[in-house]
């Protein structure tokens, strides 16, 4: 089992914004797990429901994410 979550695509379940801890749900080991999330671009706000891609893992259950753009999806 590979314990990598980078480049996984998921969805925001708790608003990601400056000053708060967001939450995203991404595929993990055959199921889905919720991870604490911060924006990769500091200061960006990502609303609930937005598709994101995980950029970097910064803790056991904390990732930095960015909004998934159309060109990244294809």
């Amino acid at each position, binding site marked *: 089992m590979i314990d990598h979550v980078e480049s996984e695509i998921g969805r925001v379940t*708790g608003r990601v914004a400056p000053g708060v*801890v967001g939450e995203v749900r991404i595929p993990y080991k055959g199921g889905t797990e919720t991870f604490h999330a911060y924006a990769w671009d500091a200061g960006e706000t990502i609303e609930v429901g937005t598709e994101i891609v995980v950029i970097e893992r910064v803790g056991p259950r904390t990732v930095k994410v960015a909004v998934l753009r159309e060109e990244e999806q294809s």
Partner: protein
Amino acid sequence: MITTLIVVAVVVAILVGLGALLIKTMWRVAEPNEALVISGAGAVGGELSGQGDAETPTYKIAVGKGALVIPGLQTVRKLSLNARKADLAVQTVTSQGVPVSVRGVVVYKVGNTPREIANAASRFLGEDVQTMETTVHEVFSGHLRSILGGLTMEEIIRDRARLASETRGSSAEEMETLGLKIDSLQIQEVDDPSGYISNLAAPHQAAVERDARIAAAEANRAATEKEQAAAAAAAKAVADSEIAQSQVKAQADTARSQAEQAGPLAQAQAQKQVVVEQTEVAKLEAARREMELQTETVKPAEADRDARIAAAEAKARETELEAAATAKKVEIEAGANAKRVEIEAAAQARATEQTGLAKAAATRATGEAEAAATAAKLTAEAEGIEKRAAALEKNNEAVIAQTLAEQAPDLVRAAAESFRGIDNLTVLNGAEGMSGMAGEVMKLGLGVMPLVQQVLRNGGGNNGEKPPDD
């Protein structure tokens, strides 16, 4: 030989049994809800190994599969991944300062990523479940207090997303350090000693109560209206019924009265008919008497009157005819007289005319004779003048004219003398006759003018005599 083979077989069987037993004791399999943490010599399991630093002994983690554990050299511990819950009861104030007493429950489990399992294992492994629950309870009571202090009462009651966000914001770091994951935080009960929540509801309750009272009042009004309308309809029905009954009764009374009156009425009508007939008889009687009167009195009087009128008319006619005859007679007599006078006058006129004409002819002849004499005389004078003029070389035409002009009245007067003999000149042609007569006079006078001129020119100077003066 046979015994040797048997011994070998038994030994092999024992060895196989021992081997299987050894494998059985060394191979440990993790259940789905637990993690095996294997520590000891050589227990470093690739990507599943814990992320310890240099001072932290590394260990092998197996989740959901088996691992070989070498007895004596390695130890294996199980870490349950089951969800657990911790009951919380805190007393705090909201961000508005409202005191609340909250009872909640937090559901958590050891995270199932290897790093969380490692963190949890290093803290809780070997402790009993009670220890983990106590720790989580203590930690989370403090967090819940701070979470609630950042929310308003309305958010606590209604805004789950905000509650979850605050929970993550205040406890995420600590939970990761403990290797725990919060699945859910539920506020089960909010006790509100200050009555804030019931006051929140008061406006809505008042509105609902108002609506209820309005609805009741309207319903009551509608019901009353319907009742009154129904009562009015009922009363109207009763009135209509009474009216109809009265009408029927009136009709019946009328019919009965008419029936009662029928006898006397017929009698009266019969009497009336009798009177009518009697009147007719009286009328006929009067007519008969009038006719008699006409025959006896009026007719003879009229005949008498007519006879007298006829006599008067005849007499008048007679008188008229007499007058006409008289007038005719007078008229005829007058006509005869007139005719006779007219004829006599005409005869007299004709006689007078003839007399005049004869006299005129005589006078004219006399005049002409005198004129001729005068002319001859004048001719002689003229010849005298002409000869005188010739003798005096040139005689002016003007002198002639002047002489002639001087002599003209004398000539005319001489001509007029021819008419002097006529006593009674009757002019027959009226004005025309008058002018004719004047013309005749002028002709007589002027008719000699050329002759005079001729005389003056030719032989005026022959005799040298002047025209005679009057």
